[in-house]
């Protein structure tokens, strides 16, 4: 698969575009907002430039060469030649639904449609298309170019061929995958969202500070990041939308979003991407 479409130039879409362009693919990155595409171009160039620091063993790549393989566009029609599309738009059904009708119309027959979502069931997304066998869950972790493994989700109708083609595509850019069945939140976020939500309740109840909650997970459990830092990295809006999907779909009260989370999202404190969440990132942006 040579030509990769990436829809959504937010944090995840930008990382996914960097990953495939660095791996030599031609990429079309689509967003409805032109300024998001400008930001994505800058972030990808910076990400490629700094990669030797994080992955010294990998060959050094020229930032201009990598961004040169990406076509940045607001026109979804440019996906008509894509062999595979990875969709990374906001975790809201009303945003995803019309988009999949368009992707179904535009993308060539047989193209793999990868759904990068934190929580939405793949089978339900696939039902928005006339080709559910070609739709597969592609749950990339942030930062996408650095994480070694992708959670791949098989929807009810996803064909073996689709899973294999997507697995091969990932392997070609150095990524492994773990294939799991379909469920809201899949494996990772069924567990992770409960953890970050409970950490927020602990903070709200005054049991511990944000710094101390995270420090316990890092220094006692050896995690690279504490749950509140993880929530900041994911984006608090995405965490809230994911919890809402889990709460609605599983009808389990344990997924009730912490009111503090809702307040922070309303206040525009979205984590790293906005400069402030449970921790401050303003001076390092």
């Amino acid at each position: 698969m040579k030509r990769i479409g990436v829809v959504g130039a937010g944090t995840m879409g930008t990382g996914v575009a960097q990953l495939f362009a660095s791996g030599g693919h031609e990429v079309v990155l689509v967003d409805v907002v032109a300024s998001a595409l400008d930001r994505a171009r800058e972030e990808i160039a910076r990400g490629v430039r700094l990669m030797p620091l994080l992955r010294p063993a990998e060959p050094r790549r020229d930032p201009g060469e990598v961004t040169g393989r990406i076509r940045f566009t607001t026109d979804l029609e440019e996906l008509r030649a894509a062999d595979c599309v990875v969709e990374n738009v906001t975790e809201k059904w009303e945003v995803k639904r019309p988009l999949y009708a368009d992707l179904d119309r535009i993308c060539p027959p047989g193209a793999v449609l990868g759904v990068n979502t934190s929580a939405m069931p793949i089978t339900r997304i696939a039902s928005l298309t006339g080709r559910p066998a070609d739709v597969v869950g592609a749950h990339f972790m942030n930062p996408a170019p650095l994480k070694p493994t992708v959670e791949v989700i098989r929807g009810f109708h996803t064909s073996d061929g689709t899973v294999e083609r997507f697995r091969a595509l990932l392997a070609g850019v150095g990524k492994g995958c773990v294939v799991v069945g379909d469920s809201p939140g899949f494996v990772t976020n069924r567990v992770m969202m409960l953890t970050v939500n409970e950490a927020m309740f602990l903070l709200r109840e005054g049991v511990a500070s944000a710094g101390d909650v995270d420090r316990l997970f890092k220094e006692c459990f050896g995690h690279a990041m504490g749950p509140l830092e993880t929530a900041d990295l994911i984006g608090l809006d995405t965490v809230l939308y994911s919890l809402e999907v889990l709460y609605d779909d599983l009808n389990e009260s344990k997924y009730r979003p912490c009111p503090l989370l809702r307040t922070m999202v309303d206040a525009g404190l979205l984590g790293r991407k906005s400069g402030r969440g449970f921790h401050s990132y303003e001076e390092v942006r």
Partner: protein
Amino acid sequence: MTDAERETVRAFISRHVHDLKVGDDEDLFATGYVNSLFAVQLVMWIERTFDVPLEGTDLDFANIRSVSAIGAFVDRKREALAGGGGWTST
């Protein structure tokens, strides 16, 4: 690097390790205080704060491993920028 600049580096790092005191020669990455995302932020902060662009072989953990390493690295970069490689018009 001046003492004041060194203090700026200490203060920046300290804010990101839960206000713990970090020794000048302490290895930030070996201690597990910070992760790779912080390394990227640190590089960008060094570039901006000390106006030294990092490229090529500069992008090495050895250059940002500790407060002392950052100080020595910034000094080397400044010398290189002030010294060779430039030209002046007449």
